[in-house]
């Protein structure tokens, strides 16, 4: 299966600070790709850069983002405008502020349809708006409501409904459920998965919640210090993470079910992007650090089929 989105050696700078380092990832059709990692490891930045939404001072010095073979980074704003939302929709981290506070949510959904589906009549658009809201479990009469009249969870759901409006190829979701309680969170994600089955879009799912990630995604990429340090099918990451940082993450979250187990955590503190340690960025905190770790960055090599790890421990195996 060929990837719908392929990121190649993408780097992102904020001024002199490199937030994303030579990241390569691919997203296959119909797949859920989970993205996890330390806060500040560049997950959101990666999502913005890949969709050409990076705000200044952010800048992409190198890399390619291929959507169906087309490099998004070289398209003009006009060409992009056609692709946007039609093919790639994005639900932002903190959807609380993602809705325009002064126009009704109905109009905001309508905006998308009007721009990208000029053939639709007003009635058709209104009907589609109602359909979308009921899809995410919001009473259709809320179409005329303003964002502040909705609870945080409802707003989040409106964003998701809006993302699905044009039935895009790819939906990027950046921590869409952090502000919600688990019940609502589960309902929304469940709905997404069901829709994915029927509509066949791909999802990039960014979250801190490892349990959630493991449960809902097909494949997971773990980021640390601006780099992808491990990438593998979800179940395998959960069962046997190979990178010490991934192992640390998995050892840090408490499980609700099953016997209480000891939480190991990760010693040390996150790296300062302005003065990254030489070599592997994780080596100062790594329990298995070797001399080479402080000198050179290990490459993200495939260790098995569909599995890549950037760690000298694995290099040694090869």
């Amino acid at each position, binding site marked *: 299966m060929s990837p719908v989105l392929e990121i190649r050696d993408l780097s992102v700078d904020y001024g002199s600070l490199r937030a994303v380092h030579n990241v390569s990832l691919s997203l296959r059709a119909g797949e859920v790709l989970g993205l996890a*990692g*330390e*806060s*500040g490891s560049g997950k959101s930045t990666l999502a913005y850069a890949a969709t050409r939404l990076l705000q200044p001072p952010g800048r992409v010095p190198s890399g390619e983002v291929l959507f169906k073979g087309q490099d998004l980074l070289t398209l003009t704003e006009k060409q992009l405008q056609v692709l946007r939302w039609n093919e790639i929709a994005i639900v932002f981290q903190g959807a609380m502020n993602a809705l325009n506070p002064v126009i009704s949510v109905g109009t905001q959904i309508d905006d998308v349809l009007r721009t990208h589906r000029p053939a639709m009549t007003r009635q058709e658009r209104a009907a589609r708006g109602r359909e979308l809201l009921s899809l*995410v*479990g*919001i*009473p259709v009469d809320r179409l005329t409501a303003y964002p502040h009249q909705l*609870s*945080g*969870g*409802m707003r989040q*759901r409106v964003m998701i409904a809006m993302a699905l409006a044009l039935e895009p190829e790819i939906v990027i979701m950046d921590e869409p459920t*952090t*502000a*919600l*309680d*688990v*019940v*609502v*969170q*589960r*309902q*929304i*994600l*469940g*709905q997404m*998965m*069901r829709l994915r089955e029927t509509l066949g879009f791909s999802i990039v799912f960014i979250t*801190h*919640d*490892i*349990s*959630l990630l*493991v*449960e*809902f995604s097909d494949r997971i990429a773990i980021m640390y210090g601006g780099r992808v340090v491990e990438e593998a099918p979800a179940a395998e990451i*959960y069962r046997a993470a190979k990178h010490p940082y991934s192992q*640390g*993450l998995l050892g*840090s*979250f*408490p*499980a*609700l*079910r*099953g016997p*209480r187990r000891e*939480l190991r*955590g*990760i010693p040390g*503190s*996150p790296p300062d992007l302005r003065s990254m340690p030489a070599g592997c960025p994780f080596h100062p905190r790594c329990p298995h650090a070797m001399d080479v770790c402080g000198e050179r960055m290990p490459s993200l090599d495939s260790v098995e089929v569909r599995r890549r790890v950037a760690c000298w421990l694995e290099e040694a195996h090869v």
Partner: protein
Amino acid sequence: MNEVVLEAEGLVKTYKRVRAVQDVSLVLRRGRVTALVGESGSGKSTVAKLLARLVEPTEGEILLDGRKVRRVREYRRKVQMVFQDPFASLNPIHTIRYHLTRPLKIHKRQETPEELMERVQLPADFLSRYPHELSGGQRQRVAIARALAAHPEVLLADEPVSMLDVSIRLGVLNLLLDLKERLKLAVLYITHDIASARYFADETFVMYGGQIVEGGDSESVTQQPAHPYTQLLIESAPDPERSVVALDAPAEEAAAVSAGCQFAARCPKVQARCWIDAPPRSDVGAGHWAACWLYVETAGAAA
């Protein structure tokens, strides 16, 4: 049994027409962590603010060490709060040192800010930094240090970790545990993350619609939830062990019920009387209770 520090009796808070908190009674004990979990908007933060006396209750009273404390300052010396959002609760224009020196001065403590920093395991050279120069986890620790500066007996922590990634989250929670042990603090821990309540709290209370619907020691509340809402909550918690199972379509927001059980509209086991009368508390295990009509007969039979 650990001694009671803070006791809230029949707290009610009404905003305009929203009844944010309805008749909540709560007891915090020395050296114990009490977790408060529940739906968003169920009134958890409001309870914390009521207990911190940042918000005046519409009804009910709060007893500190068994008595009503008139003077706010005296109260604040003993009850401190950590806010939900570490990005918002530190004033961006003051240094960390300022944030820590103020409570020391106000409450006339002899400690130095350096000692406080040590207590939350932050290097002392952070003192001259500004909040924006710290990571989220570090800020949260500063916020905790500030709360500890007053040598409180009670710490109210409102979702102290929801913004942090799991490894940092763990660090903060371990710090709270450590403080509880060493300083014999009473801690109120508010969270959406039920799993962390299981690990860090001695007792757990579940809130729904402004009321506490279930309470008991954490292990039994999380492992044998009694109230249908708690069951739903536990059921919904993410679980890496299972793959996505069939789920309900998202429920539409239910309107608040004026009388009866708040959860009635969504409850799979709803009975006729649930709509009419508010359910009383029934014991469902050792120190574990639930406010649900399902348990009324069994409780009555056992008595």
